[in-house]
């Protein structure tokens, strides 16, 4: 037998850029997180920042344009727009995050099951997703939110019913392609049980992509919450909410356009922040 040659140790000495270094080199992630953190800080500390209460009316100072006293002016009942805007962020953002928890977990789990096991498991789960996806998103949101009663509860139930589909679809595709990868086959030949392969092998591989989808999906969820508020079947007044604020301001659109425009921009701002974070995370994970 000839002597064994060891190959040149190509990558072993190659410097591995640290996590912090990678984050620093991803501007979209930095900017997005910063934008989001600013919003969260404002929402947490608003009672100390603003002298007003969100539902404190002052009918002598209604529909005022922006000024030093009222940074964004006042609405038709003389409430401070900026204060209401940030209190609304509290409501909307906390619902947005909480309502994603259950759909995210079920979606990822069902997606892995369908992708890994294939066959009838896949057929059943795919039929289920195809069924729910057949209902136009807003139609089902509106119907379920209405039927389960206006308010937060309706939103949570709606998203438990339909929110998991996006994750299930993405994760199913990913898992099915990972299933074809040889490390899954190796795990199988090593005699590891399916549950272990799903949780220990597949999960860490599908999670990054699922989190990226989560970011975009949260934007969609926020927009849906706001839309329900606008349609009057979301969060009930007097709890401040961007959707109801837009709808309240609609009557004054010709005279005080900012009443509707500003809460809209708040939604857009959050959307930009989250999708930048999503893009950034995707970038970091792709580079690896």
């Amino acid at each position, binding site marked *: 037998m000839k002597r064994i040659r060891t190959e040149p140790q190509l990558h072993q000495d190659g410097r591995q850029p640290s996590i912090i270094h990678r984050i620093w080199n991803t501007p979209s992630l930095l900017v997005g997180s910063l934008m989001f953190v600013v919003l969260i800080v404002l929402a947490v500390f608003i009672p100390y920042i603003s002298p007003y209460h969100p539902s404190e009316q002052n009918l002598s100072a209604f529909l005022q344009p922006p000024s030093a006293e009222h940074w964004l002016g006042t609405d038709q009942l003389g409430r401070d727009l900026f204060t209401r805007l940030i209190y609304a962020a509290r409501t909307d953002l906390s619902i947005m995050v909480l309502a994603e928890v259950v759909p995210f977990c079920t979606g990822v789990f069902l997606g892995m099951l369908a992708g890994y096991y294939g066959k009838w498991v896949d057929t059943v789960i795919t*039929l*289920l997703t*195809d*069924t*729910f*996806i*057949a*209902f*136009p*998103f*807003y*139609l*089902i*949101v*509106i*119907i*379920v939110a*209405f*039927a*389960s*009663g206006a308010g937060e*509860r309706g939103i949570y*139930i709606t998203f438990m019913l339909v929110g998991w589909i996006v994750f299930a679809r993405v994760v199913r595709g990913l898992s099915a392609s990972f299933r074809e990868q040889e490390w899954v086959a190796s795990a199988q030949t090593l005699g590891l049980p399916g549950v272990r392969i799903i949780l220990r092998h597949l999960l860490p591989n599908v999670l990054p992509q699922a989190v990226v989808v989560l970011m*975009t999906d949260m*934007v*969609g969820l*926020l*927009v849906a919450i*706001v*839309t329900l508020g*606008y*349609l009057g*079947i979301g969060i009930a007044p007097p709890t401040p909410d961007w*959707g109801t604020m*837009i709808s309240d301001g*609609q009557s004054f*659109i*010709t005279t005080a*356009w900012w009443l*509707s*425009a500003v809460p*809209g921009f708040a*939604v*857009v*701002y*959050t*959307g*930009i922040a*989250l*999708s*930048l974070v999503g*893009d950034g995370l995707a970038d970091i994970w792709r580079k690896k």
Partner: protein
Amino acid sequence: MNTSYSWLVTALLRALAVILFVVTAVFFIIRIVPGDPAKMILGEYSTPEAIKSMHHTLGLDLPLWEQFVRFVKTLFTQGDTGNSIIAGTSTRELIAERAPVTLLLIVMACMMAIIIALLLATLAATHKDKLLDHLIRIFPTITLGMPIFWVGMLLILLFSVRLHWFPVGGVSEGWIGTLYSLTLPAITVAFSQIPTLVRSLRAQMLEILESDFVVTLRAAGLPSRVILFKHVLRNSALPTLMLLGVNISYLIGGTLVVEQVFGIKGIGSLLFTAISNRDFPVIQGIALYCAISVVIISLLIEMISWWLDPRTKGKQ
């Protein structure tokens, strides 16, 4: 030939199964969510007797399976989900009356979305990493978080209130008038689809532009416009179609909301009237018809792309 038929049969069977699931879902959706439909119709403070008689009218006092049998029976004999509680007429007629304008709006929005998205994606992909590409790539990030109704409001504010280019709302008489007054709503609906479409299409175009066959054709000295129009665009047409199939459901949902903003008397306004009247059969009917149309449209798109793509046929 054998395999192609089996593909068709599987696709049809799957669509049929989904439709069955859809019917079941429409039946159950009102029943699994908390809250008593009768109470919702009559109001929170109605007498127990009134609720009981309403249960009887809606058939809610029967066992669940009997309710389901009734539901399916109505579906097959009448083709709908029963008569409207308020209007008394069949939901099918109510929907048929409102459907044309909604359909027209959807078709217009689809066409606008495809044309604009394809244009933007082509521009971005052919100018990769240049200024134009960066601008187009920022666009989806910004518009992702725009509520569709809010976009509609801003467009009304700009084009109708300030510039007087379009009517503020409603639908005018005649063909030209209808198309004219639906333009702004269609742009609004399209606007909600363009970000996702542009994103995926740009990625797909880049993949095609950098594939070996484009290099072959460029190396063979074909003019770039021929490569772009005859080969690249044709290859991205199929993915576009598929993408639209996935998004058609979102598009229909958006249309319903936009109708509300622009005061268009279509399915959307029928839905919201039914909701404020607690008219359950109508709500169910709309859900059923929308979902079944989505299933059929998806099936058609699947069949068209299968038909057009030689790769699905295999060796002969």
